[in-house]
């Protein structure tokens, strides 16, 4: 993880030139960014003309950008059965075509960090998911530091900050710093990876300009100011440290209590930038069709239902325990860190208030 900006790969972008920059990035590449859709800010692929209305002010998009790497539904292969000249059965199986290179623009630092947690699942161990890898390698992440974290933000509870660069190739920092009243007039664009440097180098000099000489001190101060910001919920929660405590709590009655109000709607898993569990299904007729994977949810009763009728997690208690143990204990055992970046979406979205900070608090109180 890079920790300090590389001076020769920092540029300056005026707010008024963002649209021109995004237009220049598009073409070969898909550009995805936060845009207003029906009154809500969503992470979407930009259509022509939307470059000028990218929303870098709303703290978080309703959906996370994880769908750019792990789409909600994505084809894995197509199959086609037939008959050969001799009448024997034939079957053609073709992998789904590769997707276009992409720029994820205006990603919040928490969501950028979440991509690295997905990487650990799909890119490490004995098996590498080549489809995910191809998409990941063709994706450049341009994050934007948060000037004013929301009431429900708690990235600092996981060692991140409103200005952290984990998972980002470039981070945009408002030149006027986090303490301001209106949108910044310009952003520092700081590259933290070679991919980020290449994107800056390939951007039009008219939109992405040199940082004026003598501004290095101001740049460093600005980055530091974003990184020193606290998050409201993170302040109260502190550093999350419950993995060892959870080792002995599998059978504890606290799961029954926590699960009681859960509706099993799965919203938490869908808005979560780090929930990655998926299912695989076929769709077709007449011997032809597509096999696709789709986001699934451990909160759904059928998630683990087996053909013979056995369901190892028939109760809400077991499913709630699975979700939080996965994030706060199992993933920690396997990969050495927590499967949460404190984006706060579950706090905002859960209709009954069953969110991760609540669980951390309960566990600490036991």
């Amino acid at each position, binding site marked *: 993880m890079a920790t300090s900006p590389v001076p020769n790969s920092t540029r300056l972008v005026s707010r008024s030139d963002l649209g021109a920059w995004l237009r220049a990035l598009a073409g070969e590449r898909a550009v995805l960014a936060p845009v207003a859709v029906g009154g809500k800010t969503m992470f979407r692929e930009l259509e022509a003309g939307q470059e000028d209305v990218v929303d870098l002010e709303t703290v978080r998009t309703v959906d996370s950008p994880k769908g750019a790497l792990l789409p909600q539904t994505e084809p894995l292969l197509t*199959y086609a059965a037939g008959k050969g000249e001799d009448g024997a059965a034939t079957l053609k199986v073709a992998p789904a075509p590769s997707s276009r290179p992409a720029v994820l623009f205006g990603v919040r630092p928490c969501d950028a960090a979440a991509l690295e947690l997905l990487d650990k699942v799909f890119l490490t*161990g004995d098996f590498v998911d080549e489809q995910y890898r191809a998409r990941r390698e063709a994706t450049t992440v341009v994050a934007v530091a948060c000037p004013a974290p929301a009431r429900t933000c708690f990235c600092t509870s996981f060692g991140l900050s409103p200005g952290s660069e984990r998972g980002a190739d470039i981070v945009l920092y408002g030149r006027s710093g986090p303490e301001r009243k209106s949108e910044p007039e310009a952003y520092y664009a700081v590259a933290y990876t070679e991919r980020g440097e290449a994107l800056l180098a390939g951007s039009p000099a008219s939109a992405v300009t040199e940082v004026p000489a003598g501004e290095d001190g101001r740049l460093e101060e600005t980055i530091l100011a974003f990184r020193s910001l606290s998050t409201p919920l993170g302040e109260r929660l502190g550093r999350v440290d419950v993995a060892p405590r959870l080792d002995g709590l599998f*059978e504890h009655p606290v799961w029954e209590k926590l699960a009681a109000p859960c509706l099993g709607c799965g919203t938490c898993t869908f808005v979560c930038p780090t929930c990655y569990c998926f299912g695989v299904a076929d769709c077709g007729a007449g011997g032809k069709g597509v096999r696709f994977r789709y986001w*699934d949810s451990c909160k759904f009763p059928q998630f683990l239902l087996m053909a013979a009728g056995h369901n190892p997690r028939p109760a809400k208690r077991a499913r709630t325990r699975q979700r939080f143990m996965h994030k706060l204990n199992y993933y920690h055992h396997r990969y050495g860190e927590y499967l949460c970046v404190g984006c706060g979406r579950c706090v905002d979205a859960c209709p009954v208030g069953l969110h991760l900070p609540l669980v951390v608090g309960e566990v600490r109180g036991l």
Partner: protein
Amino acid sequence: MVEPERRLLVPDVATIVDIRDETDAGDVKTFRVELDDPVRRAAWKHLPGQCAMVSVFGVGEAMISITSSPTRGWPLELSVKRVGRVTGALHDAQVGDKIGLRGPYGNHFPTEDWTGKDLVFIAGGIGLAPVRCLIDYCLAHRDRFGHVHIIYGARSPGDLCFKPDLFERWPKEKDTRVSLTVDKGDEAWRGPVGFVPAYVEELKPSPENAVTITCGPPIMIKFVLQALAKLGYRDDQIVTTLELKMQCGVGKCGRCNIGDKYVCVDGPVFTLSQIKQLPNEF
């Protein structure tokens, strides 16, 4: 020639070359399958206990244990009980039909740790499928192991799987004993009648310098484990397999975990000592 791009979740095409009914009721069939691509066929290497993701395109995929020993080469044998959609579609398939195959996946029975030991195989019903692969593998390396005792039961004589192995092949092997029981006999059955756990207690296989491998329905496993404890087997002498619903088979889809272990990559083979470390959720 450019090697075609390989993708983790994209299976290779295979052909069903033979189908054999295992049971009188027709609910268990053994499919002999062959990968179509000779390069992929040559690259395939499995060990006893490992599984394959089997696809019926248009229906889905299921994880199936490989029942033929790697020492027997191609075709691969998969014994399947008709239970759900994928296994149902397989049962409806015919010789010559195309399926998909990925794998082999999972860990394997640790035969390398069993040199010089007596082996006690205990299975019930379709649970003999993964054990059959292991038995044949051990018999192919017969001199590495001590006495071999195969204890197997099914609901009725007609439900016994792999009859040629049980009645002809295995009893003829050196220092090998086959003990069969059925829950309910018929007019022709002259053997013991009763459940597998009680039969194990009656046979009293000695735990001294022995390893026991148990596969079968959960209820059978539960009581076999109690019987083995009574006979003096330690937890690390008892090996079994677990199964859970799987979608990817490679530790990515987040489905088959028990605690921080995934049955697909960390299993399916576990010793009882390992199982006792896991939360009770299977």
